[in-house]
């Protein structure tokens, strides 16, 4: 069976991203219309739209396995692409697709399950000889056991949820006295977020860089890597800016880490696109963190520097094709940076700032790629993530990419919500970012404010406030003096007459 029609079990920019490649490959697509976003941009990219807007359930359809399977069957799609987020790492969903004779565009349910369970993944990595931070063999049952292990490996340690991801269920413990409290918090958080309270502990790596490797594997056992991405610019474990390659790696370290990434993928017979995440410390030691068994938000930076369409590779692999790319074919050219432009208020600690996008225009220079699912009139709704657009900028080297990024950021025009743009405008001017010495602690430790500030801009804003004051006070004074003698003309009115606005 070959893929002929794909149900996109996702929304927004990633739905569009997948549909663009499908169209290029001559494969039909089905998108789902929801009650929350009945006129969303992604719908216009689909060959067919399945209308699910009558469904007013609290749980988004993109998380409803049974419904998605039913929609796939009803619409005649013989494949499903999960995108990222939602059910993208649900072994159950992948299995259900297979059970219903639907091709799941992603790895096997077994690989998803093993990598999704961090204690199993850890055990597999240990067995394959992958460098790991020291830690517990498996899950730990109580804080006493946690203290025993922490004493052995040394503080600080990090407690992590076995079924975790995205920073939830994680707590750093710096001394034994904190263990009881942190253990309880992490375990409760894990239960709430992942329906599984089990946690394990690891040596906490101070101020590392976040380096991840893009993997491609086929169903015949061929696995290669497409180089690394650096995602150290993150806040509370949420990535904000990613780049490829990383200035912390040279060819030797890239080869070594790449080989380890391939080895861990082999341990689960990985077939599809995936990402192996490592922490890199200041002595260039690296430690396996986890593997993400899906396409990632930041995949475009790898596409830009390798020239490989990762979604196309996913579809070909799901079709049973043998990977045509060999490791030696992979050449990294130039530099790419992705800024996640989110509807967030950087002046209020990156709080979500939902709203209707009144204007949006993005730069169209040849060094810019924009992945977005938002257009004029779109709403950033609180039920979904706050992403407005991914601004992907390239250059022949890092310096040029940063310079291009600076220019591109000033060409982005978004009205209607606050955005993370001021953060990026600050970042591209920050010395530590420019020289590459930043770590995952950068935002918390090295920045005293989170947004770009300019004296001129504040002065212009002050001018505007004054302009408004002049106008408003003129009008009101005028009204209140309707009956007054016209010789009692206030200076406000005179100003208005003189200054044409």
């Amino acid at each position, binding site marked *: 069976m070959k893929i002929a029609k794909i149900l996109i079990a996702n929304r927004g920019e990633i739905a569009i991203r997948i549909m663009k490649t499908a169209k290029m490959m001559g494969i039909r697509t089905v998108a789902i219309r929801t009650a929350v976003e009945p006129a969303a941009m992604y719908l216009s990219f689909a060959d067919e739209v399945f209308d699910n807007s009558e469904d007013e359930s609290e749980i988004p359809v993109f998380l409803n396995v049974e419904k998605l399977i039913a929609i796939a069957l009803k619409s005649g799609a013989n494949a499903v692409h999960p995108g990222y987020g939602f059910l993208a790492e649900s072994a159950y969903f992948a299995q259900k697709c297979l059970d219903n004779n639907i091709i799941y565009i992603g790895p096997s349910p077994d690989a998803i399950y093993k990598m999704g369970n961090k204690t199993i993944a850890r055990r597999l990595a240990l067995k394959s000889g992958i460098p790991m931070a020291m830690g517990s063999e498996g899950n730990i049952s109580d804080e006493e056991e946690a203290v025993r292990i922490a004493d052995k490996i040394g503080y600080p340690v990090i407690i992590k949820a076995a079924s975790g991801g995205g920073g939830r269920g994680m707590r750093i413990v710096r001394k034994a006295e904190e263990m009881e409290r942190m253990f309880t918090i992490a375990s409760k958080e894990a239960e709430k977020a992942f329906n599984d309270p089990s946690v394990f502990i690891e040596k906490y790596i101070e101020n590392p860089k976040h380096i991840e490797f893009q993997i491609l594997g086929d169903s015949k056992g061929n696995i290669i890597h497409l180089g690394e991405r650096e995602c150290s610019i993150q806040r509370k474990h949420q990535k904000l800016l990613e780049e490829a390659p990383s200035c912390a790696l040279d060819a030797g370290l890239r080869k070594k880490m790449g080989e380890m990434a391939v080895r861990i993928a082999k341990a689960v017979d990985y077939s599809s696109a995936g990402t192996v995440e490592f922490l890199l410390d200041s002595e260039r030691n690296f430690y396996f963190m986890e593997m993400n068994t899906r396409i990632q938000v930041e995949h475009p930076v790898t596409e830009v520097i390798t020239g490989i369409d990762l979604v196309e590779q996913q579809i070909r692999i799901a079709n049973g094709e043998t990977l045509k790319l060999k490791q030696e074919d992979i050449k990294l050219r130039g530099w790419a940076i992705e800024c996640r432009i989110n509807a967030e208020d950087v*002046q209020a600690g990156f709080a979500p700032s939902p709203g209707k996008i009144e204007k949006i*225009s993005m730069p169209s220079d040849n060094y810019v790629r924009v992945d977005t699912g938002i257009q004029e009139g779109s709403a950033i709704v609180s039920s979904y993530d706050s992403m407005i657009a991914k601004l992907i900028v390239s250059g022949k080297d890092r310096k040029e990419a940063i310079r291009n990024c600076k220019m591109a950021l000033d060409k982005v*025009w978004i009205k209607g919500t606050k955005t993370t743009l001021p953060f990026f405008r600050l970042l591209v001017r920050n010395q530590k970012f420019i020289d590459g010495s930043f770590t995952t602690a950068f935002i918390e430790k090295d920045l005293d404010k989170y947004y770009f500030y300019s004296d001129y801009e504040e*002065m*212009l804003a002050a001018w505007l406030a004054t302009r408004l004051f002049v106008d408003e006070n003129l009008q009101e004074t005028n009204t209140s003096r309707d009956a007054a003698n016209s010789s009692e003309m206030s*200076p406000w009115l005179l100003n208005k007459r003189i200054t044409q606005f």
Partner: protein
Amino acid sequence: MNDTPKIDKLYALSSEKKKFSFRLPLSNRIRIGKRNYVVQLKGDEKYGTYILWKNRRYPVEIVRSRQNKYEILFNDISYTFTVETPFSLQRMKVLSSGKGKAEKELIKAPMPGKIIDVPAREGSTILRGETVVILEAMKMQNEILSPVNGKIVRVNAKAGTNVMKDDVLAEIKVE
């Protein structure tokens, strides 16, 4: 009878107490060093409202405006300013340089208008809900009431004069 003083300047005070002064009549030329630059407030279908400055467009939005207080979104950053005249600024300085510790309540004009009567007397005590001044605006007489119990330490309002919105009419030391 109008004794509105001649105002030749306005000040925009930022929330961090930065002061930007602008000469009246407000010009759209701003001097930086030896050169004048034209600032223009514009709007169109493609960009919405924006400020044009040195050939670059900056998105602007008036988020909130209340009395003389403005919250402006300029190039995705919000700024809050209060716009003061030299007189209201002077009053502010006088008031804030006072005893400082005692909690003060400023009675401000909620709208521009003419002071009809000032029952409040400096030095006397006032109870919450008692009238400080009577302000005529839009042909209606409005009683401006004290929101607190206290002692009237200063009365700026004079019967027969015109006031601007947000002008300080009286100051009450909270007791």
